[in-house]
């Protein structure tokens, strides 16, 4: 794949992959690094894929990178990733309501955040999510159900 082709893919999907990476790893800076690594991998590995599946394929690579990054961070710092303070990284245009929703989303355990993002935001089916995250469909269903329940409780408590 030529450099220009990879840049075209980047322009098409950078924000989608970035949102997914943010929901997965929680950190703005880490999400940027993940997205950059995804597209550098496309170049270095000479990867090609069926254009019909390009977005889900890119999300799969992104999920793998996020997983690697979290493992690496956990090894290096022994920090409880779930306890990090996500609220320090709000985005431009966020209202108070957005901040509240974002805080509660990020407060969910990482294993719930990624499937919830793919299901509710990207609109993927359980089957597609199971391929992207490399977990079983039943695990996807379970995580979405539990994540949704937790989110509902948190948002209700908030209001």
């Amino acid at each position, binding site marked *: 794949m*030529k*450099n*220009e082709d*990879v*840049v075209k893919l*980047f*322009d098409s999907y*950078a*924000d989608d992959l*970035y*949102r997914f990476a*943010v*929901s997965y790893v929680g950190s703005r800076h880490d*999400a*940027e690094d993940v*997205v*950059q690594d995804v*597209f*550098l991998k496309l*170049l*270095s*590995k*000479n*990867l*090609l*894929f*069926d254009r*019909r*599946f390009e977005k889900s*394929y890119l999300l799969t690579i992104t999920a793998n990178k996020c997983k690697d990054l979290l493992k690496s961070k956990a090894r290096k710092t022994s920090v409880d990733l779930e306890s990090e303070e996500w609220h320090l990284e709000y*985005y*431009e*245009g*966020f209202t108070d*309501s*957005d901040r509240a*929703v*974002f805080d509660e*989303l990020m407060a969910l355990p990482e294993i719930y955040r990624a499937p919830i*993002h793919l299901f*509710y*935001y990207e609109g993927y089916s359980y089957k597609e999510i*199971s*391929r992207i995250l490399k977990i079983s469909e039943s695990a996807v269903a379970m995580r979405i159900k539990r994540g949704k329940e937790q989110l509902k409780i948190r948002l209700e408590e908030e209001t």
Partner: protein
Amino acid sequence: MKNTIDKIVMDENKKEEIRKELLKKRTKNHTWVKVAASVAAVVAALMIVPFTRNTILQAAENVISTFKSKTGTEIKVVMDENNDIVSAEVKEGADEYIEVIDDRIYFKIDGTSTDITDQCSDSDFFRYEIRNDDGTYNLIYIGGTPSEYGWIEIIIVPDMNQAGSGEDGVLVTATISSKICDADSPQKEWEKKAEKDTQEFINELKGN
């Protein structure tokens, strides 16, 4: 929730930094690969070349086939339950089939080196065919001149339908040397002839 997530966008300066990084990064671009799951796509798509294959089933849905060529190139093809190719990953090999010495083209394989200069031109190719023990075929085409040569290696897997690929039951993949790998450059006469030769070979295999 959607409205909130919509507002999460990557910083424009960071995007520009990544774009620049992607454009300046040099790629080896040794192998240009496309994968076709059906014979009909052979002419349109040039593909990769294996010598051995190892097919496994993943999660009862996706089929992963790994191919290796004698140049060390390895390709992993993933197909879903509908026989659609989901992805293809290529790891480049370290070797080349061609060496040019004193304005002569040599074909190198299995430790041998053969002068094929007189069989190659802009309109003609040298052809090397291998039938492997597992029933697959490798067709190697070399064409051009000592200053502008190239090779195309095709693998044909006649029974690929058993592994879940292709309506015709034939998987054709290829790898192409860097000399002719630019997809935007016009096809040379010898390349067109090589494609025709491949199509005829497949037709014979299918008994057409």
